[in-house]
């Protein structure tokens, strides 16, 4: 097998909610107690993305998809684990050492507005990385490329001189996409890139992504909620729950035969336009556990209709159920 483009090994990410001694002290029943709160946003996530592949992450909102993405691209220092880019560990490189990788990795942010500098015009936003990474020879070239890319994401050239806040939500998202595509990266992390778009534009963008993928052979970590989009675009996908991957597999096997109870719950909830649902409706009862106090056993066991005793005691590991299809569940 070829060396994967990206390999994530046991990646973990924690947020310390208590910044210092003073804040961790709390008055409880007349006593001062010290409590340290840690959000375990990502727990030992491992997956690999081959060259030219689109790998999707789906899962509950708040389960740590964005955090995984941000850790991979090193906006956050990982608190554990490794990220290998073409075999090289980039998870502990300094900002300077990271520089050569920056051009090859780009991110489309979930938040289309906050990630755009309100004081930069759209053209500046897009031309900046191009010029910086030498994609464009000069300003003129950059402008041409910029107009081209704007065109492709469905923005009009005369809108190039506007500021982000003058756009509607969907338009802003497209600016973010254009920026990421501008440097023709090898690897794109797309954090819900199309969720704010209307279906027509969404289709356009997805087509664009596919075209570019064919053209430049880039790989993509794709985060989305819309399973039909995921199914359309990705080659493989991982299902996340509470910061951990519970099921990974090829698109066809996974959609054809979802194994993990959470995956089933997820698929059963997909709304459709006049089509029958993927999976018969399953009710997932119970509370979603908090990432602050992780349960001891399987994270899903509280809501799992099939849970057995063992699930509450022991955390299941990811294991291969069928070729190219892994799941983390005791009862399979």
């Amino acid at each position, binding site marked *: 097998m070829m060396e994967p483009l990206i390999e994530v090994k046991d990646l973990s990410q924690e947020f310390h909610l208590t910044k210092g001694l003073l804040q961790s002290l709390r008055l409880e029943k007349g006593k001062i107690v010290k409590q340290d709160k840690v959000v375990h946003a990502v727990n030992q996530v491992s997956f690999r993305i081959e060259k030219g592949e689109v790998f999707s992450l789906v899962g509950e909102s708040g389960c740590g998809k964005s955090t995984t993405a*941000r850790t991979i*691209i*090193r*906006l956050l220092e990982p608190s554990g684990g490794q990220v290998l880019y073409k075999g090289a560990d980039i998870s502990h490189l300094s*900002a300077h050492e*990271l*520089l050569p*990788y*920056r*051009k090859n*990795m*780009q*991110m489309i*942010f979930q*938040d289309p507005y*906050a*990630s*755009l*500098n*309100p*004081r*930069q*015009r759209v*053209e500046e936003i897009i031309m*900046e*990385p191009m010029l*910086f*990474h030498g994609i464009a020879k000069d300003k003129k070239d950059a402008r041409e490329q910029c107009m081209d890319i704007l065109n492709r994401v469905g923005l009009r050239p005369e809108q*190039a*001189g506007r*500021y982000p*806040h*003058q756009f509607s939500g969907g338009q802003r998202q497209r600016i*973010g996409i254009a*920026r990421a595509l501008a*440097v023709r990266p090898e690897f794109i992390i797309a954090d819900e890139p199309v969720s704010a778009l209307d279906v027509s534009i969404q289709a356009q963008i997805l087509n664009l992504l596919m075209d570019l993928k064919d053209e430049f052979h880039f790989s993509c970590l794709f985060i989305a909620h819309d399973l039909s989009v995921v199914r359309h675009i990705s080659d493989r996908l991982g299902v996340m729950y509470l910061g951990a991957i519970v099921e990974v597999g090829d698109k066809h096997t996974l959609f054809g035969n979802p194994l993990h109870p959470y995956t089933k719950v997820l698929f059963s909830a997909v709304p459709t336009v006049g089509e029958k649902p993927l999976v018969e409706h399953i009710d997932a009862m119970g509370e979603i556990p908090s990432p602050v106090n992780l349960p001891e056993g399987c994270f899903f066991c509280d809501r799992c209709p099939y849970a057995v005793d063992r699930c509450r005691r022991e955390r299941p590991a990811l294991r291969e159920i069928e070729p190219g299809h892994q799941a983390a569940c005791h009862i399979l």
Partner: protein
Amino acid sequence: MEHEVRAEKTSWWKHFLKSEFFYHYKNNLPAIIGSILVLFAILTAVAGRFLAPQNPYDLTQISLMDSYLPPAWLDGGKLSFLLGTDEQGRDILSAIIYGSASSIMIGLVGMAASCCIGTTLGLIAGYFGGKVDAVIMRIADIQLSFPSMLIALFIMSVFGRGVGKLLIALTMVGWVTYARTVRGETLSVKKMEYVEAARTIGLPNRIIILKHVLPNVVNSIIVLATIQIGNFILTEATLSFLGVGVPITEPSLGLLVKTGFDVLFSGLWWASVFPGLYIMLIVFGINLLGDFLRDELNPNLK
């Protein structure tokens, strides 16, 4: 605006006239008034020497006999001394014209210098944090503990008097305001997602600071800068009041106000009121223009 200007270089002036910037400017009376005042003040400062009725600092041209003549329209005034004279028999109008050159220079250059130094240091401190921040901010603290009077006095004792030296003193005092404000805002701005986005592009810190942080803190900088121009002109007056201002041979508006101030109660109001009014006009103009610029540079307000 900018990109339109670029689009067609040949007739940028025409483009400017058609631009949004000019459109807003045209419809903003305060901005027009402001720029007329500022332009007038600068022109006077630069070219006024050739127009002034008298060189008030050529001691051979003035005569003590003319001292404290009231403005021309009052009883006892002379037409040759339109705004009256001071105790040396100096024409106030000429003195204002000559003095405004120093004052505007003090205001503008002093502001520019402290703004550049302060903003740079503030950005660096806020963005990098940690040791760099601590060092810069503690230097700021030290600087803050020295009053401008003491610094001016020190510079004067060591290097002598002069507008240039005063500028050094004012800059030494002035940068801190920017540094601290900019740092404070940088602390907040650097946590913004667009700064993170810039980091994922791989932009070096230098560029992130310049292109992503700076524009988002520029608001306060403009406010402070416009205020500071006036403030420096006035500080100079105050230093003159304390006896450590510009030398009497390189006059300034502040100095005129100060000397005139001594005789304010005696009914010889013109010696201080006219320079004072002129300072007000300049400061007013600069602030009107500054307000406009700040609003114009803020895309959120469009």
